[in-house]
């Protein structure tokens, strides 16, 4: 039987049972659309991570003191990096810039008559803003009563906060200070990557004069400012050597002595962090996609089910085809074509639906959309294969129908 005739008969059979064909296709649509959505969101997330790393932060080495894996209670990170450490790190070969960062204990922020409670208030140095993308204004000056805010912080108060406005800061100690907003940024150049995933309002204060967290430096024996986190901006050509040198220094630093038991110092590049994040995203994507594949399986069972019903209903037709010269193979191909059509229709509808889902999800998560074309193509192929596989057994049953029995049926 030629392909065109087979297709024509198959389409007519499907159309003669429109509702149940549509419902069967819907079963496939749900499965494939879910797969397309999840792989697209996963790919978009990965692309976002890579983009983040490839940006200005590519040469950053992040120093942190965190609890060693699976050890001890997850205490809050401690400020263990002293001014001495910062000074020593500046002397490391390949270190272009060293930017310390700490949390400023603030109990309230007021703008005009509106006061908000605790906010994420960070103390850092002007160098933090060297690679930053400014929406408005300029970096603050060290020692000045100036601050920088991020985009999200503009809308924290009743009225939009912009450059030139004055804020009143209530310190944990109860003291109040007035500061002026001098810049609005999209994140800093040196803060830990992927902070943009957390769309949190941030306020950046200069360490001088505001940052007052001090510890006694074990090396020098004097009280010094101590920071939660230090970012070393390395010479682009020398990233791994610089990372090694930083690790060397850390082994014998104030931070090592100061950090509590069970804590570990790490000096990781954006790439290192991206790798582990990508790994995590990849695992999550695979897991969720696995669930979606399960629903695709349900769709396949739907096709198999409806095709079996169809074979039973059309036993007589099969008998007729065989009586007028149809071979087993012709019948097999006809039913396979119908099943494959159901799968293909499902895939065709599912791709735009799945992509629409991905667009909504990435909009919501505020990340760029990356369509993994290969995966989408694969989803369509899977639809075809699922249809064909699901139709295999029913089609085989159809091909084996005995024409004498079939024609005797009423």
């Amino acid at each position, binding site marked *: *039987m*030629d392909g*065109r*005739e087979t297709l024509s*008969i198959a389409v*007519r*059979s499907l159309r*003669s049972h429109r509702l149940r064909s549509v419902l069967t296709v819907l079963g496939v649509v749900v499965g494939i659309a879910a797969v397309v959505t999840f792989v697209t969101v996963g790919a978009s997330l990965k692309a976002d991570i890579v983009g983040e790393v490839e940006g200005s932060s590519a040469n950053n080495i992040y120093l942190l003191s965190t609890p060693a894996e699976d050890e001890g209670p997850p205490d809050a990170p401690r400020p263990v990096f002293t001014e001495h450490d910062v000074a020593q790190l500046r002397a490391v070969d390949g270190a272009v810039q060293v930017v310390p960062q700490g949390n400023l204990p603030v109990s309230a922020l007021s703008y005009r008559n509106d006061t908000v409670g605790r906010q994420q208030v960070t103390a850092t140095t002007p160098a933090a803003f060297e690679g930053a993308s400014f929406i408005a204004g300029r970096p603050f000056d060290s020692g000045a009563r100036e601050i920088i805010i991020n985009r999200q912080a503009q809308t924290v108060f009743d009225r939009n906060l912009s450059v030139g406005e004055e804020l009143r800061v209530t310190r944990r100690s109860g003291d109040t200070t007035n500061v002026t907003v001098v810049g609005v940024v999209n994140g800093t150049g040196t803060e830990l990557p992927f902070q943009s995933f957390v769309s949190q309002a941030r306020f950046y204060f200069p360490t001088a004069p505001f940052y007052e967290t001090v510890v006694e430096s074990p090396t020098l024996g004097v009280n010094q400012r101590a920071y939660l986190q230090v970012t070393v901006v390395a010479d682009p050509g020398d990233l791994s050597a610089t990372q090694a040198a930083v690790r060397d220094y850390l082994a014998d630093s104030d931070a090592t002595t100061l950090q509590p038991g069970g804590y570990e110092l790490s000096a990781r590049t954006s790439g290192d962090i991206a790798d582990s994040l990508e790994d995590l995203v990849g695992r999550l994507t695979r897991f969720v996609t696995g669930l979606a594949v399960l629903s695709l399986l349900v769709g396949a069972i739907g096709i198999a089910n409806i095709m079996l019903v169809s074979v039973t209903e059309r036993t*007589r*037709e099969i*008998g*007729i*085809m*065989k*009586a*007028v*010269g*149809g*071979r*087993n*193979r*012709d019948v097999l191909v006809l039913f396979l074509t119908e099943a494959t059509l159901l799968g293909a229709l499902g895939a065709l509808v599912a791709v735009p639906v799945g992509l629409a889902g991905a667009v909504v999800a990435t909009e919501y998560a505020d990340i760029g959309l990356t369509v993994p074309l290969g995966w989408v193509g694969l989803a369509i192929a899977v639809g075809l294969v699922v249809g064909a596989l699901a139709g295999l057994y029913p089609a085989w049953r159809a091909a084996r129908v005995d*024409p*004498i029995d079939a*024609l005797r049926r*009423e």
Partner: protein
Amino acid sequence: MAETGHTPEPVVALDGVSKTYELGGETVEALADVSLSLPEGSYTAVMGPSGSGKSTLLNLVGGLDTPGDGSVTVGGRELGGLSERERAAVRGGEVGFVFQTFNLMPRLTAVENVALPLVFQGWSRDERRARAEERLADVGLGDRLNHQPTELSGGQRQRVAIARALAPSPAVLLADEPTGNVDTDTGAQVMGLLDDLHAAGNTVLLVTHERRIAEHAGRVVHVRDGVVERIEDLDDPTPGGGA
């Protein structure tokens, strides 16, 4: 057994054919040592009560069934030695079935139904369309080409079925109680059409349990309990018959 033997090459020949079925653990002998030959252009009726084996005989000639013993030859080909694929080709090319219940494909139009055997024979689209239109015109349905079976009367459906049976120009036309599902008048028309086809030179094998219908043939083969009881030659009223 009975052979009129005046044609050197019979279109259909059964030689010592036996067929048994297993039915609920019991062995039923549907045909026992049946021999029969249909000369080219002959019109033969097989008559017998239900269960006599006449349908089995038709299925064997039509290549739907295979004999347990003996040989069935259609158009010079021994069906026993053929593969399933080759038997399908015989069904589609050498024989044309006409059934009691018409057996048209429900979603195909008249012309598509008639063209269906040609699809399986690998004819091109244009060729089969032309042939199907021609055959439908022959049976007087040239104006019903694109009607679906549900839009046709019983008599018209049976005529479509006859046109389909004739589409590949088969060696023999097999009609199984062709008037069983239509009223008497329509039945007469159908039988008239078969008479005309016979007159035009087609070899016809008719299966029926009605004497009145069987009398259209030139020869009546009486079958009972799987054996040929007797073969009765009639005075064929149709000119050009095989007698």
